[in-house]
């Protein structure tokens, strides 16, 4: 955490990254991303009709993660924005995964 905060102290970083709007892609790019997302959703949904067997859960989790990060990084501009925003969000995300993962572990949740 502190590393990044140091980083934002660099005047240059601040001056450049404060202005995200220059880096924001055109509408067409977002539409393409949305089409991919729609495709991924279709693939997800197909697991309902097609039988992927034991492969289904890992597949679904992978697709979920891809979609998650596509939205976060592209639609929410995290990829283009200042790192500090990512840090703020990922601390929360990471802590959530960590504490609730351990919590569910103590309930033997992952034992099947």
């Amino acid at each position: 955490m502190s590393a990044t905060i140091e980083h934002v102290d660099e005047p240059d970083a601040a001056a450049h990254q404060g202005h995200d709007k220059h880096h924001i892609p055109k509408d067409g790019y977002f539409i393409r991303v949305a089409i991919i997302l729609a495709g991924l959703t279709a693939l997800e949904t197909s697991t309902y009709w097609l039988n992927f067997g034991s492969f289904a859960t890992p597949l679904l989790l992978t697709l979920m993660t891809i979609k998650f990060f596509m939205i976060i990084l592209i639609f929410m501009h995290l990829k283009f924005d200042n790192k500090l925003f990512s840090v703020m969000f990922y601390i929360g995300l990471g802590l959530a995964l960590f504490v609730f993962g351990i919590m569910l572990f103590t309930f033997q949740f992952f034992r099947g």
Partner: protein
Amino acid sequence: MAIIERPSAVPATVGPAGGVSAFVTPSKALGSYRRPVSTTGWKSWVFTVDHKKLGIMYGAVSLFFFLVGGCEALLIRLQLAAPDNTVLSAGLYNEMFTMHATTMIFLFVMPMAAAFANYFLPLQVGARDVAFPRINAFGFWLFLFGGIFLNTSWILGGAADGGWFMYSPNSSALFSPSHGVDFWVLGLQLTGIASLVGAINLIVTVLNMRAPGMKMMRLPVFSWMVLVVQFLLLFALPVITVALFLLSFQRNFGATFFDVNQGADPLLWQHLFWIFGHPEVYIIILPSFGIISEVLPTFARKPLFGYKFVVFSGVAIGFVGWGVWAHHMFASGLGPVTVAVFSVATMLIAIPTGVKIVNWTLTLWGGKLWYTTSMMFAIGVIVLFTIGGLSGVTHAVAPSDTQQTDTYYIVAHFHYVIVGGAVMGLFAGFYYWWPKVFNRLLNERLGRWNFWLMFFGVNLTFGPMHILGLQGQPRRMVVWPSKLTGQGFFNLAFWNKVSTVGSFVLALGVLVFVINIVYVWKKAVPAPLDPWDARTLEWMTASPPKEHNFDAVPTVHSLDEFFHRKYEEVDGEHGPKLVKVKTAEEIMAEQVANADTHIHLPSPSYWPIILAFAFPIIAYGVIFNRVLCVIGAAVLLLAIFGWALEPSVADDSDYDPPADGGESTKELASIV
């Protein structure tokens, strides 16, 4: 001459690209009303958005709740003074310790830390206010209303009686049928929202509102610790929010989350509570760590030893604190693997905490120690916290903890770290910063009494609890039987009595503090500008600071900026020597001479308090009558829209007499 200017509705500096935008900024929210603009009188407090006024109000209210929580503690101690005592009935006793803990933690220590943070954080980072002044005001009022709401349960059918961690299923309506737990749940939700918005506000303030040159590694340690605390709040509060929602959905809407007959697992509550609860204990202690990290260097007259280590260890505590919560559940039957992992993780936390103790001690080492009351409290913190921390390490040893948990040995541990650590640290802050806030020095003679009474009081009250606990006296027991007290040196009866006497010594100490406040207020002798020869930015301004904090926002060149402006190293006979080259008054004069012009300060607003007021209405509605919920929700919506439509700076026409557009009316204050 600095001029605070109230700009007209469309300041030229606002809007994209610095130009006047095509859309006109509205002058009045929700049609027309006149905005509060008073700078004096009660309105200037109720509608203020000034972080300093809010800080004072936070402080006053928390101090009040400290006395309330303390009186509850005294009743507890009275009941426990003798075996099979009858001061309190069993039911009342259960309410008493539940509310004692809740009041002390949520309505005293946390908001008192918020008081210090509110007041001094912007000053320490060299800002004119916090990032979101109206949200700041909202946070205060919501905390106040939440606290009042919580305490009205006493007269509306009984307070919560499930203990401060409110374990399920004992907290469900079947086992706790009064409305007490409902009040508790909703009250904590309200104060939780208050803390959450406060956390966001203060984080943004530290990151974004720093004066030029105030790099993170030049930030005073107090500001650093407050920053860590706000992150802990930001991420811990949502977890208890979930827990509280589950509980209130169960109690008020028939959900089944903790209904064992339906297959619920009561440990879910324990996990959710302690995932919040353990970070919470560092939320309690870190502000005090920050305060004494300011006080010790000032009165040792040398910089904090190992600034970076102290800062990083604070951050490390913040992180490791997330991985240890299950040490509160060692007896719950988690299984050996979980217990072993959490046991070792808990021990880890002693390392960064130890770093702090070591650095404070080494700050004293080789210093020129000046024993003001503030300094004595700070040293008291090191001593008492170490004792409490070490007993914490003995709990971390899980098998030992199964003998200790839920006994007075635990009560001893956490009162040493909380009262000896957090509370004494806050007192160090009171004595240190009182002249800054009120332009009065607290009396040092009374201060001495205050300190020694509290220091001995703490040891007398909580020291014996180590013995009581290890002798097998469990906590939360309205009575302890005389037959099981034992005889001789370690008998329970004697030490319980000592503890009770100690609690009154402690109370006397607190009383001396209250007397001190009244005494110096009555005497009204102004304090020197820089009474302690202090080191950080908050001292580089008037006492009390002007509304806009700094006439000229300082440019920061080093850690301990103020000190380095006052002192310079010159070559003496025996090598380099520090010499005072400037007084605080001279530095202030420089500031005034270079004062900024056109300082835009946010204007007071009705909306924060109105918005905050909507919440208790809704909360009462959930308990008593859903119609109230609807009314509350309407107020809520109204306030949100009013807020959103209101510009942060008041329109000219809001001033009395209304401005006629002339240049002169914008100049509301001029400071020489």
